[in-house]
């Protein structure tokens, strides 16, 4: 369960207002897609909700735990896959996973069991002894996915997780998202591709220029189709984004 309340963030560095009064509630048991074009503010939002960036205004709560007040407890309740899989290339995959599991204080049995299962499903079990620097981008992404679930969190937060994955791994990832939602956990991921969201999400939010312009189910989005036409969701998504930017281009 993730609660975002009136989040705003202006980067002091560039003066860009990346997120502007954003509120969302993501329930347990649902796959929530966070859609928006490049530069819409998806990564900034995800960084705020994972405690990486401090919001200028607003509040983040994970399972009811306030991020500003109890950051360590809140952070222990989610698994996070960032937009940069280039991490610690000098460590071996095994060392990296052990490190992450130690940060979440995962007991021996549980970590072995989860890593065996996840690394097996993503087909990187045979590469665990190798340095991460020798991995392809897709393998690095898979390793980050495995690391994010090593403590079996109630919430799973992913920033553009499909990027760089081969079709097999993308399929495995979707399966995992579905099974986690089905077991009552919360899955929140960002993407700029409508097609991905369409196949997967229970609800979506569309964000552009730091503001949410739509929240709801895909059916609710279809209902907004003008004059009952049969425009694709992709077209609807683009229309939403364009309307918010002040007319079609």
């Amino acid at each position, binding site marked *: 369960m993730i609660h975002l309340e009136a989040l705003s963030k*202006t*980067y*002091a*560095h*560039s*003066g860009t207002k990346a997120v502007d009064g954003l509120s969302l509630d993501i329930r347990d048991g649902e796959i929530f897609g966070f859609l928006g074009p490049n530069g819409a503010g998806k990564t900034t939002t995800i*960084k705020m909700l*994972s*405690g*990486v*960036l*401090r919001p200028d205004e607003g509040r983040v709560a994970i399972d009811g735990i306030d991020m500003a007040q109890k*950051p*360590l*407890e809140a*952070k*222990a309740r989610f698994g*996070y896959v*960032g937009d*940069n899989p*280039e*991490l*610690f*290339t*000098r*460590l071996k995959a*095994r*060392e990296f*996973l*052990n*490190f*992450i*599991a*130690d*940060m*979440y*204080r*995962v*007991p*021996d049995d549980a*970590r*072995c069991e989860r*890593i*065996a299962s996840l*690394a*097996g499903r993503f087909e990187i*079990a*045979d*590469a*665990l*002894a*190798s*340095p991460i*620097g*020798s*991995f392809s981008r897709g393998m690095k992404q898979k390793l980050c996915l495995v690391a994010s679930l090593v403590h079996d969190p109630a919430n799973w937060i992913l920033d553009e997780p499909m990027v760089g994955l081969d079709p097999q791994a993308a399929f495995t990832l979707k399966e995992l998202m579905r099974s986690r939602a089905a077991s009552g956990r919360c899955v929140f991921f960002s993407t700029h591709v409508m097609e991905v969201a369409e196949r997967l999400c229970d609800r979506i939010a569309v964000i552009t220029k730091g503001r949410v312009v739509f929240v709801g189910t895909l059916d609710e989005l279809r209902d907004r189709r003008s004059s009952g036409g049969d425009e694709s969701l992709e077209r609807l998504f683009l229309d939403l984004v364009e309307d918010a930017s002040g007319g079609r281009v």
Partner: protein
Amino acid sequence: MTAPFASLIRFYLRAFYGFSDAARVPLPPGTAAGTKAARAKRILATIGLALLVILVVGDIGFIFGASYAAMYAALAPAGLQSLLLLNAAISAALIAFVVGFVTALSTYCLSPAEGSLLALPIGPRALFGAKFAMTYLADAALSFIMLAVAALVYGLGERPPVSFYLYAILVALASPLVPLALAYLLLVPIMSVSRFLRNRNVVLVLGGILGAAAALVVNFYLQNSLARAGDAAWIIANLAGPDTILARLGAVYPPAGLAARALAHAAAGRQLDALGAAALALGMGAAAALAVVLIFGPAYAASLPAFGEGRLKRIAKSDTAAYIERSFRRSPQLAALFLREWRLMNREPVYLINGPLVIVLFPVIIGITMAASPEAFAELEGVAHALGGGPAKALIAAALAAFLGTATSIAATALSREGRALPYLKSLPVSARSFFGAKLLHALVFTSIGTVLGAAAGAAALGLSVAETLAALAMALTYGTAFDLSALWLDTAYPRLVWETPTAALKQNPNAVIAILADMAALGGLGYLATRLSLGLGGITALYAGGAGLIALGLALFFPRYAEKRLGDIEL
């Protein structure tokens, strides 16, 4: 030349020095005060860096200036002062070769991404040309300073026409070209045939060791010329005459002879001769550089793709279950954080050589210098004697120990080294106290090793008693702790997080340079203060160890809260 070529050079220089583009982002009008503060900070940082450069350049220039002035004074009475120019031209070429070879080796392939540049529509010769230009721009400074200073000394004595200085600049700019071409002439074939060397780790470690050796050569050379500066008879005997090393080097290496002749002609007002010699020197340099770039470009480009970051070794499918079962064990959070720091530092060759290995390399350099000039050693004992029987010896040992313990740059680059991995780390349920605690611990481990080694060496060299050794150890350890905390604070306040190569995070990190300069200043200041205080061993130990201990305690008390707030503020 063509625009892509120029931007390629810029790309390389930026990768080499780790410049960020952030400073160039135009600020939108009417931005918030926070942004103004950020801009002010950037301007301050730039000024600081400029001051640093001036300081270092001034320092080197001063050393060269002093030794050339002495050389001029010795040679001028015999009318042999133009030998000064030949000496400078040859020395500059030698240094350009040594330093250039090391830079060329360690920047042969800056990052694994460099191989992918070949996918762009860039010819191999343009690529190699840009790399050559980068090495030239990065390394020409030292030989330029040498020749410029020599010309200045010569000019002050001879009062030549202004055109002399123009020739001096021209010749100084041209002098590193042939040495660099030679360096690449050796390097590219070696890299092309040897599979072993085309591994970034091996290249970086070799580059580091050769770098240390180069530092030794330069250091030895400077020591020597400074030591002989007052010895006019030696200078004449070794520089003047047909069979001196200088004369022989000048004969086999024409560019230096030409450069010296161009300057001598210019100083004497023989403009035409000067022009001819300078044009020939410049032409030789340009021709050598161009020839190497054109001939070896394809071979250079062909040798790039082999640079990787380690090989993937697959575990047999049947063994993975057993492997996982025995590989994954829980350790305490702080231990895991510490181990991560340790591994990331020691496995990155640039970090290893400029960090922990300094503790080993530095004593070797000092040892060799001492062995080369025993007078310096005797001088040290003389100083200790002159300061009286009191705590002087213990203080010298303490300073040596403290310096060795604080020379690793671990604390001063602790946050910078995280680079773009920092956001990920911030998402983990780790307190700032543990996160920075592990960093401090990492720095303190090496501070302790360096301090103990330094104190032991000092004690052995100066014949300290047990009490004196313990006093030195106490002063150095408390100082080192306070230093590490301050350096960590500095890097937390102004981390350099946006970089492409690890060199930029450590070796070229202003925090590392500032920390080491502040370190030397503080040690010097404390040494001076000790001579003014005239306290006994117990008194000075109580004062220094107590003071440093108190400072360390204060920093340790206030740092965690600051660090937590600062970590939250960082926008990456």
